């Protein structure tokens, strides 16, 4: 059963890193967003530093969401989804494998880019480490929640924005605790470890709920 899962995982990774696959584009979007916001807000460095963690988290959220709608629709279009339904591995695990591949291809680059972008926003070094850690623990939650939205919108041609609309409210807790953990690392009344642990917990929970709901949604189209 491991073989088909690994096959799906590697396949999705390879597709993502090919031209037009979408692996690099998430980071570029992230960079574009982080660049645009200071233009709107003004070059006030203390202000940017204060909203820095929030900007990075929102950037990561949007960059994750915008790439998600293609997870299942590309397979639906070329028939691979039917093959996956017949595979010896349960659909839930296949969905999880695809999610994992998406995170490695899209989420992980965001995590790596975050400290560099944090410098653009004038974040102090301690915060850079903290934000990277919170994004590392939290971006999986964004990916696995996004799996559900992607699966629900699979057969729809204009699915992209719908997926974002459906998933955004559900990602709010991750956002809240992710930013809070980052800010907490700078000292102050908010602890660092409690929100960080909650972010981790949310990722674990969505790692289960996401693929299960996504598989149910995919089977739904078949009926």
């Amino acid at each position, binding site marked *: 059963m491991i073989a088909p899962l690994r096959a799906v995982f590697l396949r999705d990774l390879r597709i993502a890193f090919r031209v037009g696959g979408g692996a690099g584009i998430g980071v570029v979007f992230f960079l574009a967003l982080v660049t645009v916001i200071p233009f709107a807000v003004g070059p006030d460095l203390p202000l940017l530093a204060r909203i820095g963690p929030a900007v990075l988290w929102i950037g990561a959220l949007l960059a994750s969401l915008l790439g998600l709608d293609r997870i299942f629709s590309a397979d639906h279009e070329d028939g691979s989804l039917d093959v996956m339904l017949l595979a010896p591995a349960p659909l839930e695990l296949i969905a999880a494998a695809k999610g994992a591949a998406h995170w490695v291809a899209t989420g992980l680059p965001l995590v790596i880019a975050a400290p560099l972008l944090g410098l653009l926003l004038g974040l102090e070094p301690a915060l850079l480490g903290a934000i990277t850690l919170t994004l590392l623990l939290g971006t999986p939650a964004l990916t696995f929640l996004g799996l559900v939205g992607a699966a629900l919108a699979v057969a729809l041609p204009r699915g992209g924005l719908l997926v974002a609309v459906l998933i955004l409210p559900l990602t709010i807790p991750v956002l809240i605790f992710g930013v*809070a953990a980052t800010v907490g690392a700078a000292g102050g009344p908010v602890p660092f470890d409690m929100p960080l642990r909650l972010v981790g917990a949310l990722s674990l929970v969505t790692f289960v709920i996401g693929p299960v709901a996504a598989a149910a949604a995919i089977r739904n189209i078949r009926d």
Partner: protein
Amino acid sequence: MAFYELANPHRFMTLARWLVPVCAAAAVALLAIGLVLGFRAPADYQQGETVRIMYIHVPAAWLGLGIYTLMAIAALGTLVWRHPLADVAAKAAAPIGAGFTLICLLTGALWGRPMWGAYWVWDARLTSMLVLFLLYLGILALWRAIEEPGQAGRAVAILTLVGLINVPIVKFSVDWWNTLHQPASVFRIDGPTIHPAILTPLLVMALGFAALFLALHLAAMRNEILRRRVRTLRLLAAAEAC
């Protein structure tokens, strides 16, 4: 491909025909009584007359949450028990639930302006209701996006249940987040302490809203059944034309 027709709806339609006007009448009566009682009750010593807004704001919030719970139960009915009318009930409930949540948000803002000086405050309750409103909008969008009723019903059911799991998570996180950002001067954001003179009209208003929901919901379910009948007829017509 079988064009199937729900057998149950016949009995439902007959039931709805007399139940809708009865519920509507009950709603009008209850709301009238509730408002009279509400305006007879004493004004809050801190909030003055604006506490009258609470008679709409609080029951609307209860209904927004209650209707979502109803949709979640209907979702289980669709996915687990395959009840033929479950997804009809869910689809009919969504706009009404969104409406009550919107009423809660609007009246909350109009209550907040004289009370705390701002139309919107990011206090835990209002913010949670805003997130609930976003969930409703997502559900409404998904209903519109998928053409085939059965498939749409199951997709929305999945989304509703995922959303339901998230409701306590969101509530908890928003509460927690709100304690972080509590302003220095603390207003009684909880609202006035509820003493019986205020509690009774509040409950009556809630019942009135519930009766109103029932009337609207049953009528909307009836419409949805008719809408599916139209769809089936059109499909039949297209098939026969071949």
